[in-house]
């Protein structure tokens, strides 16, 4: 059953301390904080949708590069071998470590791809005057994809493994490693430039979609 909306749309409850308050009009770049607990309630981003679209497209390109070109090469006793992120997960699977392989594949390949895909769809859908209901669904689940996207954790793991292995073989960083490094930044910038409130304010309500 749906709750009843209030007539005053500017009323918000602080997500940390639940204090009820009215959001002021903000100029781009400014932010509003809860007077009781100092939680940032809203930061209005400059040119949010356009910038997020640009960064999401850049992230999509980097994501493709990061997954389809070699990430690491090893050179030992005159032989060289290269592998991609996907190849690494596949090798883990073949070695009988199915759970680890699944986790690597999900957090380093699937979740980032979903995060970028969701964001692209949201921003493109939000270009309409009244964004349709499916944009609301994607927008609601987007934080989950961002939570599971752990490229930076994988990078750290790769670095530690590299140090351990450096004594036994020569390690050759591949193009994908640099693409992943750049992707960490671009994804952070994409999340930071996005202002969900701008989309929520115009979206078609779940209640209205259900009644149709």
């Amino acid at each position, binding site marked *: 059953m749906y709750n009843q909306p209030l007539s005053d*749309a500017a009323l918000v409850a602080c997500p940390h301390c639940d204090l009820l308050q009215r959001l002021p009009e903000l100029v781009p770049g400014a932010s509003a904080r809860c007077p009781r607990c100092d939680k940032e309630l809203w930061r209005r981003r400059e040119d949010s949708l356009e910038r997020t679209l640009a960064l999401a497209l850049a992230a999509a390109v980097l994501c493709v590069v990061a997954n389809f070109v070699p990430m690491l090469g090893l050179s030992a006793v005159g032989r060289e071998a290269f592998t991609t992120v996907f190849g690494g997960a596949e090798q883990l699977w073949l070695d009988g470590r199915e759970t680890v392989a699944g986790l690597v594949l999900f957090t380093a390949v699937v979740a980032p791809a979903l995060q970028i895909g969701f964001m692209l769809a949201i921003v493109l859908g939000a270009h309409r005057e009244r964004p349709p209901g499916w944009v609301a669904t994607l927008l609601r689940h987007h934080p989950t994809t961002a939570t599971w996207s752990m490229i930076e954790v994988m990078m750290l793991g790769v670095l530690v493994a590299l140090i351990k292995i450096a004594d036994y073989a020569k390690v050759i960083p591949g193009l994908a490693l640099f693409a992943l490094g750049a992707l960490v930044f671009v994804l952070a910038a994409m999340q930071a430039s996005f202002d969900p409130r701008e989309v929520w304010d115009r979206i078609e309500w779940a209640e209205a979609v259900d009644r149709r």
Partner: protein
Amino acid sequence: MSTPAATAMTLGLQGCHACGLVSRPVPGADEGSCPRCGDELSFRKSASIQRTWAFLVAAAICYVPANVLPVLTTITASGRDSDTIMEGVVLLWSPTGWPLSLIVLPVVHRGRARSTATIGLRTGFMSRWIGLSGYAIAVVLLLAIGITPWVRLLFPLWILLLSLDTLVESLGGAPRRGGPAEQCGVSG
């Protein structure tokens, strides 16, 4: 503040954690869905304090073996080599490896399997940009340290940047241009 703080709950309202809309449950119902985004709403997380206690105790118990027992064993032609997290930190502590070691070390004390940068990000201590640049600098240091000695300056530079950011933030500088939101005039 003249009137006691009016929270959404004391007024019988629910704020949506997904989209931020404040709405009122239909009369007689305790829980409902957000009319804008469809997310489920409730006044309280169920058994919040009890669950937090349970997980806290479990985490404290896991923390001990996590640091005392080996975390990784490397088997090579020259033999077996088991390392605990602390031994790993010591292993990384070398003229070129020390910045990476500094990044791994605080993980031990926080009991969380991520880096300084991650801890900074999650606690809100570092702004997102600074934290994430920490990861990138770790990568650059590792891969490029042999190419030019100047790269070594990156890590002190990052610390400087972090200190400046913390200083600006604690002085209540730039980020608050908008000022606090006005408090709503409704009283309980």
